[in-house]
């Protein structure tokens, strides 16, 4: 039986005019593509979290999960495969004009959300597992508060990455020109919940 722990968090924050958060996330990911050592991994996530924390007042939607035991690895695989499939646009689609749904969406709302997903598969029973477990042990009423997501983000640099079996980060949209409207967010990420302030 697997003894892993899955920790996943998705945050949608509002992107204001001239905000460079998405571009900076792009830089962080692009510069860190090579195989990584533990110090590099830690630095990578510190940079991602610092950028997220800078947008904490603008966190508007989110979702998170913390699962221990045999379902953990499947959950990591499920999250990552679904998100990656959503990003697997064929090359001929890239650069094509927006379809009618996008036109409709853009007519209804300004493109202004960035969605960041962070996933971890952690060795069960380790200090990292215990620390995350304590930080995720929250009253149910707090699950979907803005402050909770800031706390969850803060938990990431506390990990000892030697205890992390796998990790992943995803950012949407994929370019500065494209944006995610509130309608697209609701339709494309229906599980994301509005966060209480």
């Amino acid at each position: 039986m697997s003894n892993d722990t899955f920790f996943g968090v998705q945050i949608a924050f509002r992107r204001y005019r001239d905000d460079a958060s998405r571009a900076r996330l792009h830089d962080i990911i692009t510069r860190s593509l090579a195989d990584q050592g533990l110090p590099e991994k830690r630095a990578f996530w510190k940079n991602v979290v610092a950028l997220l924390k800078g947008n904490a007042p603008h966190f508007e939607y989110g979702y998170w999960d913390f699962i221990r035991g045999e379902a953990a690895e499947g959950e990591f695989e499920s999250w990552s495969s679904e998100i990656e499939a959503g990003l697997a646009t064929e090359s001929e689609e890239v650069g094509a004009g927006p379809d009618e749904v996008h036109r409709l969406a853009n007519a209804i709302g300004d493109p202004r959300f960035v969605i960041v997903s962070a996933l971890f598969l952690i060795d069960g029973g380790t200090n990292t597992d215990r620390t995350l477990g304590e930080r995720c042990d929250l009253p149910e009423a707090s699950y979907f508060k803005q402050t909770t997501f800031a706390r969850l983000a803060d938990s990431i640099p506390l990990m000892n990455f030697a205890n992390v079996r796998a990790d992943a980060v995803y950012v949407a949209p994929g370019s500065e020109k494209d944006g995610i409207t509130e309608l697209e967010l609701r339709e494309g990420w229906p599980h994301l919940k509005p966060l209480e302030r």
Partner: protein
Amino acid sequence: MKPPRTAAEIDLRPFELRWHGATVEGEGARWWNESVAVRNPFITGDSTSRRQALLVIGGMVAVGVVANLARCDLQSDPQVSMEALKVQQQMGWNAGEESRSLIFTLRASPTDAGGRQVGPDSMTTLWSAMRPVQAAWVPYYIPTLFRSLADERSGSLRGQMSLVHTDAMDQAFGRGRAMADVFGVAGAPDDVALVIDLPGPEAVALAAGLSVRFEPVWLFDNWPHPLGVVPSHLVLGAVLYYRSLLEESAGTRAVSPAAGAVDGGSAEGAARPVRPPPMFVLDSNRLAPYHDAADQFDNRYLARLPSAQALRAAGYRRVLYVRTHDGVGAQLRELDDLNDDFVAYGQGGVDVRIVSADAFQLDAALAPAAPPSYVWGGSPYLHTYFWHSYGWSTASPARPSYVGLARSFGSSAGADYRPVARPTMFSSRTVGGLSGVGKQRPSGFGLVSVRQSASGRITAVGAGRSGSFGRMGSSSFG
């Protein structure tokens, strides 16, 4: 192909990049910590033996991830589970089953409800034609199913489509008209939104009947498939059958002062055009039973309704949920994926009640030769006291004896329903003794097995989650 790394390299940089993608949709990266594998007692020696041992272990515990690890060693792409809709949107509506045809188990009609022929344009434009008139409800409209007909790879789907028209749909349509009439009787509240949750074609027919008074907000969130668990092509056939009628209703409904009349309000209220209330239309077959089988494609999906806050903001403090009795003596209640929503409605100040569609019965007092007419409880007298039975009437009861009868009938037809939290496969869950938040969609729900290349491209589709694979030609991608 990247050569296997040595143990020293892994010790220095244990995180190995396994996936990276960057498109207009988004970008991301996924790494795997190889040093954890080093600690595994089954694995010794150099990197080659470590990789081989991983294959053995992975075969026992996690096909998807280990297949990923083995990408360089196996001739096939890794097998992963993927959302059925995503697969169809990438591969085409009949992904993996291009040689199979849809099976229309229901009666087809050569013409629509208005007696007209339906051309291909009616299919490709269906998704935009069914968009709510009121902008407030557009964000909740789910055009997914209708858009399957507009996809450029759906020529064979359009070619196989038939208009669906059955006796059960006619009954549902009549019941919809009767239900609309109930909202016109004295004392009817004007802050009620409907949620219709019937088998697809009947849901569409009931909505068509109600469309004289209510604005449909369609919530069909999947694509049809030749082996689909949910027979959504029948829903499409029903919508195409009623399309012209629905469009006509939208045109007249938008300027109708009906609600001004039903709320018994002032003359000023009766004279001004008002907003038609929404009806959210669901296919109860979305949660059809499924067992991981090679001859089924899991195109099930979950309902997505507005929050209590959104309903209240739009002026709706009551929801009437339209169901049918599942069996004799069966208790009326919401489908499992709506339990959390309805409980939240109750907590958020939105009252929820159920009305059984089959509580609208043929008027027994009509002459045999008269056209069929449905009334609540099968009696025009009970029909008048519908709102009293729900405790939602804004008028004083004039005939206590009928009110008593209506309440008695209503209690068995959904008036006594109150949403109560209950464990379902869609409930939030707690794992490992710690607080956790469950995904609304349970693991394995609405997923199919695919083989996926390193670039994220699907190369094969299996019908069941663990079913056999039909190899897809690369020509699918142009």
